């Protein structure tokens, strides 16, 4: 079983790593069609290196999403008031 697994793993790495590398970011952004997504997904299951690469970028993406600034409520409130003011007093736009 382990021999079969290593053969499959080596074949996956040998034939698909470069292609997976080219498609990985689009895979992470959910921009691939179903066929390509399945193909990349299957390779990621088999290839430890590509799987690690995928998990690293997933971690990076999650950290970037958490990096989002919390908007200052006062600033947002001022902008909402400004927006209301535009609607109420159209003269301000002239």
């Amino acid at each position, binding site marked *: 079983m382990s021999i079969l697994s290593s053969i499959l793993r080596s074949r996956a790495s040998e034939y698909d790593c470069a292609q997976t590398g080219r498609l990985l*970011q*689009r895979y992470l*952004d959910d*921009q691939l069609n179903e066929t390509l997504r399945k193909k990349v997904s299957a390779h990621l299951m088999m290839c430890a290196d590509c799987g*690690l690469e995928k*998990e*690293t*970028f997933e*971690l*990076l*993406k*999650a*950290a*970037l*999403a*958490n*990096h*989002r*600034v*919390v*908007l*200052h409520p006062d*600033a*947002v409130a*001022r*902008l*909402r008031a*400004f*927006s209301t003011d*535009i*609607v109420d007093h*159209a003269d*301000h*736009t002239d």
Partner: protein
Amino acid sequence: MCEVSEYKKVLIGFSYLFFIRPCQWSLRLADTLLCVPTDKTREELFQLYVTGEIDLLYRVALSLTRRPPDAEDLVQDTLIRAYKSIDRFDGRYPRAWLLTILRNTNINRGRRRRPELLRDPATHADPVSNEKTDRSVDLMLDGAIESALGQLPDQFRCVIELVDVGGLSYQEAASTLGIPAGTVMSRLHRGRERLRDLLPASLLVVES
């Protein structure tokens, strides 16, 4: 030679009658169906398409200007422009329309402000980070990301901030930056790889 010309004229006539005219009618019909309902007032259209996007506009403006006061001014100018032009907006892709106005406004403001490049460092230094609150993410990684983003060339940093940090789609980021969506994608992917290379490997260890 003369017969060929006549034949061409007939062919063009038929093409016009049976292909071009129907296409024009279809486009006109599609425009009618998709366009903004004319019974809405300018104020109602503004409330419908703009008011709900103020958070998004401010977030993107912060990415573009890096200074909260500038971002606020930029959003105010954008709101005024959006109000003035909303009666010409066809109702399709409101976010892309708004982000395009934001981009153009920012470009015009940049032209006006260019002579005053010397800024007070006290007001320029890292104002955005002051707005952060507690997050569950590892603070070391967060700090490293802040530093690594600062080292990225602007073209990559901007796209990462808009898409990965700000949550915009490729198309929305493309409208904001005035570049094709394909360019957004390639810059994003290259930017992420550069960012990964800039971060200490120990911070991106995946727990098994």
